[in-house]
């Protein structure tokens, strides 16, 4: 076979994979809604300094960490909940939430055989058996199950390269210098209401450090789940790519059905030093609430990356299908000269879901570049907002931004909103923003019908086509999962 044939054949195989997904469509309500029965140790409801000390103590943290948490808590007390996102929800009672839940057993496994079979079953239901992933995808999985890491694999391989991939709790103990230096350096606890709350009570999360000149040989991945009833989840992720290094990090989420709204307020901080690159991909499918809009997760996340070094690059890719309310703006601070920020996003809302999501690209260094591609799909009675900021500072000579922001509406009861903010203080900047709104065309559906493709499949095909530019940025297995989620989320949304 010639190279071109191989290329074509590859493309076709990929496509047949796509098609299988469409066939996989099921009529289940929320496919991954189940409650696993692992006993949890749960902190009493409410928040005060004692609770924070308890969390810190349970986790065996050093004094400086406890102090940091308390400082954040005291600051948080003075803050007000933000009101400006284009979302509506019943007020959260912060004293009616339990801020800590840990599985009672806290074992250290060397192999998967030792892992609680109940937990393995849970992963199987999620379609991500650890052993298969190990074999197939070469993905090291640091599974965060209800706030505490219980299984970490591939550590040995990573260790050889000097890569640190562990829970943040472990990092606080084992690598305090790195944590002290970088934690809160991109998202200080003073940043916003939820970042302050997270800093005070964060339970666990991932820590990654890639040493100088190392290219991480595999995609790092953590699956988060919210499990114990009424436990707010406050993950904290810190990723540092030292000079000339590269890492691709995957984050995927599923959650069981719950009646009560669950609060999730994570903080993710990325730091890219000279010539380093971080690629951060998310597929988010938390419980969105039922068809009447009852239940569902509140997802108030602060994600931010700092391109500190010259020629550094941070790329966010996200596929958001879940949560009752999403409030999330993965951002890039482009400090280093020639640094690059990217944001690729698909946000789907159905029924009564509300999403207010977008990005901030802050150009501070010379010759910095950013690209924003946002695809919003609204169906049912949902509201989908893009809110983005492109800021070019006085010193950011020759900064470039391109933003493409498309909305697709399905049905006449939903809403699509675009709120881009463009702030330019340098005359050499070039900023371009384009936005369109459209619907799935009846003529398109008829055309596909005429070629023998049924309406539901035709819609999936059109929607996937609409999102193609973003899916292309995802690692293969994630892209497959993303398409699956999209199809399930939009099921039955066009008569």
């Amino acid at each position, binding site marked *: 076979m010639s190279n071109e044939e191989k290329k074509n054949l590859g493309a076709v195989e990929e496509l047949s994979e796509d098609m299988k997904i469409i066939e996989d469509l099921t009529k289940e309500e929320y496919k991954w809604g189940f409650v696993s029965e692992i006993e949890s140790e749960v902190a009493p409801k409410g928040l005060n300094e004692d609770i924070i000390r308890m969390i810190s103590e349970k986790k065996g943290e050093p004094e400086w960490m406890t102090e940091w948490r308390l400082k954040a808590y005291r600051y948080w007390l003075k803050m007000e909940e933000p009101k400006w996102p284009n979302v509506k929800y019943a007020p959260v009672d912060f004293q009616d939430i339990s801020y800590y839940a840990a599985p009672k057993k806290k074992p250290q496994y060397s192999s998967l055989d030792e892992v609680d079979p109940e937990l393995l079953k849970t992963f199987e239901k999620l379609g991500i058996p650890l052993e298969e992933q190990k074999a197939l995808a070469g993905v090291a999985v640091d599974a965060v199950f209800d706030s505490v890491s219980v299984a970490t694999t591939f550590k040995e391989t990573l260790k050889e390269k000097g890569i640190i991939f562990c829970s943040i709790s472990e990092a606080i103990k084992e690598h305090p210098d790195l944590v002290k230096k970088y934690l809160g350096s991109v998202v200080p606890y003073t940043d916003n209401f939820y970042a302050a709350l997270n800093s005070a009570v964060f339970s666990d999360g991932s820590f990654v450090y890639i040493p100088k000149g190392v290219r991480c040989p595999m995609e790092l991945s953590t699956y988060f789940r919210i499990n114990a009833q009424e436990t707010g989840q406050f993950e904290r992720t810190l990723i540092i790519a030292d000079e000339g290094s590269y890492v691709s990090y995957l984050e995927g989420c599923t959650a069981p059905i719950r009646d009560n709204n669950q609060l999730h307020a994570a903080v993710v901080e990325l730091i890219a030093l000279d010539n380093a690159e971080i690629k951060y991909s998310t597929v988010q499918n938390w419980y969105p609430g039922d068809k009447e809009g009852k239940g569902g997760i509140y997802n108030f996340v602060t994600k931010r990356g700092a391109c500190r070094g010259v020629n550094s690059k941070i790329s966010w890719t996200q596929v958001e299908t879940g949560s009752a309310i999403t409030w999330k703006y993965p951002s890039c601070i482009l400090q280093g000269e020639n640094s690059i920020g990217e944001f690729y996003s698909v946000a789907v809302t159905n029924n009564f879901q509300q999403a207010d999501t977008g990005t901030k690209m802050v150009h501070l260094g010379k010759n910095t570049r950013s690209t924003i591609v946002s695809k919003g799909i609204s169906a049912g009675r949902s509201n989908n907002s893009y809110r983005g900021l492109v800021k070019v500072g006085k010193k950011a000579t020759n900064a470039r931004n391109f933003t493409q922001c498309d909305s697709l509406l399905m049905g006449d009861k939903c809403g699509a909103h675009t709120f*881009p*903010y*463009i*702030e330019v203080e340098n005359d050499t900047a*070039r900023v*371009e*923003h*384009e*936005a369109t709104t459209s619907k799935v065309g009846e003529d398109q559906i008829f055309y596909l019908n005429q070629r023998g493709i049924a309406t539901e499949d035709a819609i999936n095909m059109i929607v996937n086509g609409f999102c193609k530019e973003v899916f292309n940025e995802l690692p293969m297995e994630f892209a497959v999962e993303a398409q699956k989620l999209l199809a399930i989320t939009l099921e039955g949304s066009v008569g």
Partner: protein
Amino acid sequence: MKELTKKENIKDWYLKNFELFEKQMNGHNHELLKKVRQASLAKFLELDFPATKNEEWKYTDVSFARENKFNPVSTDYKTSLTKEDVKNIIFGNFDYNLITFINGKFAAELSDISADSDKIIIKNLNSFIDSHKEIVENYFAKISSDDNLFNVLNGIYMQDGVAIYLKEQSEFSKPLQVLYLNGYSEENLLIAPRNLIVVGRNSRTSIVFNYYGNPKASYFTDAITELYLEEDSSVDIYKIQRESLSSYHIEKFQAIQKDRSVLNHYNLNFGGRLTRNDINSKLDGENIETHYYGLYLGKENQHIDNHTFVDHAKPNSMSNELYKGILDDKARGVFNGKIIVRRDAQKTNAYQQNKNVLLSGEARIDSKPQLEIFADDVKCTHGATVGHLDEEAEFYIRSRGVPEELAKSILIRAFAADVCDEIKIVELKEQINHLIFEELHRQEVSY
């Protein structure tokens, strides 16, 4: 300048002045206007001047309004200005009717109105109320004008303005120029024009609003313009703002459009230390067309804020908006363009473009285009760009022997052309082109 000491409250000052103001109205205060003033006074107590925390005022700091006492104009100004002086200020070389206001007060001696049909009434508002009470009752102050303290302040202290009423099936044979000569005599005036335009069914008209400031004066123009377009009517509004560079200019323009009406609104901004325009249209009918064209030039330390809002309330209408900004020196531009397509407004087509060039390293632009779409069968796009003059194009032009400054002027001319080309009065188009270069102190490239 009368600046406030810290202990003084600016709101108290305006309230205190009101009694005096009313007395000086000397019977010119019509009952209908009194009602509006009273309602505005009540609202005045509730509100404050907007802070930058307010999303609608995020990029525009109006502390000038808190820190300065502006004197509401109540008495007529005995002008030494002659018709000859006025001729140099208005736009010429075409036939027009002219109505002039000095410091917001009607100046009959400098006006020249020859209504060519009894179907067309052009007057100052105060006399219009006497002759057309029902029209005023039906249309005046029907829009929401208590969004912010500036609108409310106009409601309290409005002096006069133009009233234009076209009955069914009528048409101006020549455009009307509305000239506001501001900042004459005393310093620190509060000038509050209040304009009302009612265009009956199947009527059409073209109106040039010309806000011109005494170049040396400092004052505050706080205007409201209401426009009603009945079925099948068509209106071109040109707003040309050349206030003094130490003055403040705020206008709220609100149009209500009925079925098949067409509005062309041109917002050409040259003057003012700080300018804020709110240009709103409610498309309250089907098969309506709304076109917004904007050109804003900033130099020195000018601040120009254009907020536009197109509200698609019903199906099958279209709106099209093109706003372009050229910012030099330390000027700052703000564009906020909102389009709402409401649930019922299926088959809407809405377009919006905002383009900016920065000519200096210290100029700044904040652009915020917004789409809010609640109907699914619509076509909506918006775009915003910021850049500088194309260096390659400049090089290309210079390589043909054109000096640098002229090459830049050619590119500025090219940039502004999309908006200028839409001006329908040819003579006006040429004069606007001239103004662009005059205002930017650049070598002119003729049209």
